[in-house]
């Protein structure tokens, strides 16, 4: 694709033009990065349904023109109310339409055992880290439109940094609660877990069903040598929220990444995660759960990038579709030349619960090295008739038996979720969706 002669009208995502760029003064480093991202954003065409990646999720499904970027939330001095699980985390960041706050439950921030700061603030206090990681080496593959948008236009930027050897027992919870109709929110996360440190980051997205919202999220996460990074996100947007998310994760030598994405809400979700197991003995476990019912449309792409020898990745994405729900899963395992002794696995299981629903799966392998083992699988089907009969033969009514089997189907992924609250929430969501008669 050539870049020079693109027509701005073709290039701009409606709502994200020159005038939408943040006006407030920011540290030079941030301004420079935004500038670079904006330039890239202008060079990339607006995706269309003709692009391979958007063929199954026509960008026209997202009414971009109906949204104006929301104001940047301001830091609140006083707490604005707690969530039910806040106490189970060391640090809680809550973000809503007007403000955000960072709560230091365990005094870790005060002691300097962990950094959780707005990006602009971090650029002043830790310029070397921001310099190194913001729009940094996790972006190995070709630039993408919505990452560039996120980098150029983010309204709420957060920097999380676990110093070397820091073991953060309960981790960080970030709650996004948005309710203002007609607005787009653009949060940006940068997280770095240094050598041998261990950190869990949980994110929770929520909006009411009656608010029409657009969320464009960009996350960039790094696990340094020997580090363990657990990142779990629970997306429970309301029925009229649209979400485009692009995530970039990278594991260095001996690092371990456990990635969990739970996609339950939203009208249209178009997500991409690129996980680069970048150095020898790095490991990545990627897990996904999605459930599209009513008219929901869920499209996810995963990249397992093996750029170094002796790297391991294991992916399990399980989804269900119901009513007019449509899911798309596209996975690529990419083993670069020289990436020998790679062991990569990818599995996508799909339940199609009712007629009218649709599931697509595109599990791909791109292998340029020889001494390795990569495999993938994909299955589609309804609930197993023999299992259903077995449960009913024990007296369980059909609806209950079906629900139990859907729960059982997802349990393998739910077991990989690091927080009890999230596990319970997901089970509840799945139960609700099973019982929901559209």
């Amino acid at each position, binding site marked *: 694709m050539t870049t020079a002669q693109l027509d701005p009208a073709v290039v701009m995502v409606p709502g994200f033009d020159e005038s939408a760029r943040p006006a407030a003064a920011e540290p030079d480093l941030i301004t420079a990065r935004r500038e670079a991202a904006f330039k890239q954003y202008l060079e990339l065409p607006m995706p269309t349904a003709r692009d*391979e990646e958007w063929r199954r999720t026509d960008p026209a499904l997202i009414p971009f023109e109906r949204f104006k970027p929301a104001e940047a939330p301001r830091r609140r001095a006083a707490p604005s109310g707690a969530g039910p699980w806040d106490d189970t985390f060391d640090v809680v960041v809550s973000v809503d339409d007007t403000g955000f706050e960072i709560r230091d439950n365990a005094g870790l921030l005060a002691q300097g055992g962990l950094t959780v700061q707005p990006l602009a603030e971090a650029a002043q206090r830790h310029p070397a880290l921001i310099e190194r990681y913001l729009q940094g080496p996790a972006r190995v593959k070709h630039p993408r439109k919505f990452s560039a948008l996120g980098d150029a236009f983010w309204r709420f930027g957060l920097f999380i940094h676990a110093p070397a050897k820091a073991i953060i027992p309960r981790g960080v919870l970030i709650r996004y609660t948005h309710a203002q109709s007609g607005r787009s929110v653009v949060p940006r996360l940068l997280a770095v877990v240094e050598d041998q440190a261990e950190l869990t980051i949980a994110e929770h997205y929520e909006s009411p069903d009656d608010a029409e919202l657009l969320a464009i999220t960009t996350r960039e996460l790094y696990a340094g040598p020997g580090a363990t990074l657990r990142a779990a996100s629970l997306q429970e947007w309301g029925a009229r929220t649209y979400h485009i998310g692009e995530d970039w994760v990278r594991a260095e030598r001996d690092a371990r990444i456990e990635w969990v994405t739970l996609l339950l809400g939203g009208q249209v979700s178009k997500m991409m995660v690129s996980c680069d197991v970048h150095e020898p003995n790095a490991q990545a476990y990627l897990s996904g759960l999605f459930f599209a019912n009513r008219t929901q449309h869920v499209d996810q792409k995963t990249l397992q990038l093996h750029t170094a020898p002796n790297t391991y990745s294991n992916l399990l994405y399980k989804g269900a579709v119901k009513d007019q729900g449509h899911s798309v899963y596209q996975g690529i395992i990419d083993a670069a*030349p*020289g990436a*020998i002794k790679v062991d990569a696995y990818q599995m996508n299981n*799909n339940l*199609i*619960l*009712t*007629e*009218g*629903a*649709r*599931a*697509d*799966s*595109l*599990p*791909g*392998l*791109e*292998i*340029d*090295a*020889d*001494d*390795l*083992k*990569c*495999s*993938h*699988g*994909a*299955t*589609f*089907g*309804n609930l197993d008739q023999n299992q259903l009969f077995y449960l009913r033969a024990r007296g369980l009514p059909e609806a209950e038996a079906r629900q139990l089997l859907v729960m059982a189907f997802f349990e393998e992924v739910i077991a990989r979720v690091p927080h009890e609250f999230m596990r319970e929430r997901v089970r509840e969501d799945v139960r609700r969706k099973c019982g929901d008669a559209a």
Partner: protein
Amino acid sequence: MNQTETTHKLETDSKLVREYQYGFVTDVDTDELPKGLNEDIIRAISQKKNEPVWMTEWRLKSFRRWQTMREPRWAKVTYPEIDYQDIRYYSAPKSASSGAAQADPELLKTFERLGIPLYERDRLAGVAVDAVFDSVSVATTHREMLAEKGIIFCSMSEAIQEHPELVRKYLGSVVPPSDNFFAALNSAVFSDGSFCYIPKGVRCPVELSTYFRINARDTGQFERTLIVAEEDAYVSYIEGCTAPMRDTNQLHAAVVELVALDRAQIKYSTVQNWYAGDEKGHGGIYNFVTKRGHCRGAHSKISWTQVEVGAAITWKYPSVILEGDHSVGEFYSVAFTNNRMQADTGTKMIHIGAHTKSTIISKGISAGESANSYRGLVQILPSAQHARNHTCCDSMLIGDKCSANTYPVIEAETSTAITEHEATTSKISEEQLFYVQSRGIDEESATSLIVNGFCKDVFKELPLEFSVEAIKLLELKLEHSVG
């Protein structure tokens, strides 16, 4: 235009000759049209073949459509721009005729050297052969015996003359000219190919076979094959292909259409051994082929088996449209690439009817600096209640400069269907190699044994004698890929 094709300087490297024993050129008088493509050329082709007006019009319509289309570039293959005006679209040996008795002895010798005897006295037992040399069919064997059963097996040119009603009814009904760029090109310029028609209730007693040979230089081969099996009919069809070794690329853009009515079965096997170019990637055939079967009737079955070991570039997706309830589609494929070969091949199974069933077994072997991709689509439409699909795509890598890619797409639109897809990519197993070598077998033979084992699920689908041939061919191809 008459011209004697001069024998092109053969690559004399003895190793290469051993690798590709079909690389010779036959010295025959040819009847050729000038290079280039326009409506006049198409009219000339049609005229040479003495075609009826409807056929000429069909070609012209296809050509006009083709002019509006763009060459597909989504496959994972790279090649320089093709100059479609620098290709000769018609070249026929002057002596060509459709009876072996009158055929030019040079041609008969050529096919004999290729292992395809066309003389009545030594023709292959149990196999009826149609031999296509460049643009035309030169001989079809076993015709009388087949005719007694009502089976029509002849060249496409003859079919257009003698069975226009059948050709008009079915030609383009599975692969319409507008289907894709190469199909449109083929529809405009196709010169010959085979036509098989198996009437109601007839089980074809012999294997039908077409042997395609590209001989002339700078000539494209655009054959068109159409097989129709009526209710309860059965036919097994085999195609083989070779071409001389030349240092320029040649285009082969064929279209194959299969139609199976109620309870009919068509088994289509291919052993594709076009010249693949040399170690540096010079020369070789561009094999851009559209093959599709249509299970129109209930309980019908179409089975594709392909062993692809040749061609510089392969772009080919033999597919099945499963429209009849309870119809069955199968795709069994071995694709071997070596040196700089590129293969992008796979299948499409389109499930429309209820209780339709498909099986896909694909084995890719990449060696040298080659690239081998599987690309497939399994589509289960809402009407395909209780459809089943099982797909297994395995890739084996021999050497560290080659690549193997797998790009499946599965679309499921009914809750009653079950589909399973599995794929693995790995290096040839060192443990297996070691085990076999420890029994005194050298590395090359050990590799070939293991590769054969890897491919056995596909080889067993080939008719027996061709299975033996395919195994030998693969062994030969593997000889220089180890180490």
